[in-house]
């Protein structure tokens, strides 16, 4: 029983990692005041470009780099439309997802069923992996999982303890005051959105190069949207984002596990779980956030028009 629990928890970490990367990316953009509903599209394009480059170069690091660039470029479209041209952020994000879905299907057309020559493999992380329970759950994964262990604390430190992080948050809370303080709001928003795209690209590449090394059309299966929901769940905080991502990874892992154990629930119902759980979490979190008065960055979703202050 214990070993089952450990393996489910370990699987939760791997299943949660792509969502975690995407959530951290979206969190970055939203902290700067830009809502990007294109996460799903950016992840898909990241997944397929990472895979294509890895297949051709047999080097998964080059693939990862390609995914980061692709995700960043996708996000750049959103930044141009919403920051410079002040287009509606909701519609622009949706357009990005529709575009990314099509683009990834186009690029991946000849990639279906091709095995990845050198996917990211799991390895034991020295003595850490021998810690009872925790070692098996946390320290027997691939390098991209380990990177998040460093990335999240660093991210948190950046956001709350550095001047640059303060500027980022200021651009999302009160762009007018940020501008008056002599900072370039548009530049902050551009970099935040693009960096968000880079992280979403890694999330996508994690799926196609580590989690299930292959390409399938729409292989993200809504994880990008779950990431957007997780940002709300995390109340725009990176540490809670990590917790949330593993929670969702756990739901996914549990579904697989139940199937493997031979529990006679229709697999379709099990696949519904993450989506239903997201809705439930959104309802619970929204009402409690309201009570606790923690909320979204005040200027989230609003374009900043310098002339209009």
């Amino acid at each position, binding site marked *: 029983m214990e070993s089952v629990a450990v393996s489910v928890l370990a699987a939760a970490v791997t299943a949660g990692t792509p969502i975690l990367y995407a959530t951290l990316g979206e969190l970055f953009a939203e902290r700067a005041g830009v809502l990007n509903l294109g996460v799903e599209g950016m992840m898909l394009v990241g997944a397929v470009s990472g895979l294509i480059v890895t297949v051709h170069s047999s080097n998964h690091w080059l693939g990862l780099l390609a995914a980061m660039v692709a995700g960043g470029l996708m996000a750049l479209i959103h930044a141009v439309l919403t920051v410079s*041209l002040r287009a509606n952020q*909701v519609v622009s994000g*949706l357009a990005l997802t*529709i575009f990314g879905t*099509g683009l990834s299907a186009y690029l991946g057309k000849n990639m279906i069923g091709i095995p990845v020559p050198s996917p990211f493999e799991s390895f034991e992380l020295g003595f850490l992996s021998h810690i009872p329970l925790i070692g098996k759950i946390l320290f027997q994964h691939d390098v991209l999982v380990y990177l998040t262990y460093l990335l999240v604390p660093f991210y948190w430190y950046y956001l709350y303890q550095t001047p640059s992080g303060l500027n980022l948050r200021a651009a999302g809370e009160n762009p007018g005051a940020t501008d008056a303080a002599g900072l370039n709001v548009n530049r902050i928003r551009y970099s935040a959105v693009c960096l968000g795209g880079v992280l979403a690209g890694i999330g996508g590449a994690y799926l196609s190069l580590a989690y299930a090394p292959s390409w399938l059309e729409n292989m993200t299966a*809504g994880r990008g949207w779950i990431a957007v929901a997780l940002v709300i769940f995390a109340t725009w905080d990176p540490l809670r984002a990590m917790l949330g991502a593993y929670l969702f990874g756990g739901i996914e892992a549990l579904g697989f596990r139940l199937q493997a154990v031979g529990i006679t629930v229709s697999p379709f119902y099990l696949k519904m779980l993450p989506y239903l759980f997201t809705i439930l979490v959104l*309802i619970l979190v929204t009402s409690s956030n*309201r009570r606790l008065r923690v909320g979204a960055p005040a200027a989230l979703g609003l374009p900043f028009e310098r*002339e209009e202050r």
Partner: protein
Amino acid sequence: MINSWLANRFGLRVEKQIHVSPWISLFIPFISIVLALLVGAVFLSLTGNDPWKVYGVMFKGAFGSVFGLSECVVNAIPLLMTGLAVALAFRMLLWNIGAEGQFYMGAFAASWVALSFPHAPAYLVMPGMFLAGFAGGALWGLLPAIPRALLGVNETLTTLMLNYVAILWVDSLVYGHWRDPQGYNFPLTAQFSDAATLPSLGNTRIHAGVFLALAAAVVVHIILKHTVWGYEIRIIGESQKAAKYAGINVVKNILLVMMLSGGLSGLAGYCEVAGITHRLQESISPGYGYTAIIVAWLGKLNPWAIMVVSFLFGGFLVGGYTMQSAGLPAATVSILQGSILFFVLAGEILTRYRICLVERRNDQ
């Protein structure tokens, strides 16, 4: 910053404008489509395809024959209905991204009636399917509307999540106990009785649902332009605060609009099973509910414009199918659709700003 640069260099300035000339409103969608096709052509040639050939096949497939044109109409029917559905919600700034799921639930509910009463006469089973289709979509729309109205739960995400749930629900049926035992293990239900199918026009696949879709456009137009309710919807869309001050019941309107929006998508699902497939099956929608978002935005949330745009996008879908059977990359179509929306969004800045000459600077 931009203004001083423009003024010094060219004697021009950018100004906010309030009145938009209708000429610009027509020009933007048109030029967006042209630009998207251009970008698509560059992209196609970069990836080793001949854009002329791809566009040629696409265009001929959709608009090059009577059959092609009739197929455009066939695909425009669900696009029009789901496009109207999301436009209605968008008018109120309710981001209903759930048209896809509402479509599936409408198709499911209508199929349930058709399969439960295989011997019922048309005058009973048809209205039953119609009502069930509407109700299925409406309830699926109401589900996320309740937490949205009462607690402010983000409806973009909840409606989207319910799409996946609805599709999995239909899958569970067509792979499960609704599967036709004589269907050679394909994921589809038994065929509906003749009484439960919509008549087709001549030997095309255009079915009676086309009238329903056109009627839906008229109804949405009347609601929005000629009723108090529509006025309230538009006020809430402009400013929820103002609406509250004016004594408009926002909660009630959110629930009603989401039900009507879901119901329209549900009817689109009903038309698809009753008019085209004559059974419930896996992936009955190639993403109508998502394309509907582009259709609605390109049509400026105006029912008449949405009608024209849905025919055009029906053409895109038909072109995509033709490309698929010709071995060309059908995903080009979704790339084009996405790019069109990008350009429309970028072009909207022209409706909000105008460039004009800097005059009489000395007088200031």
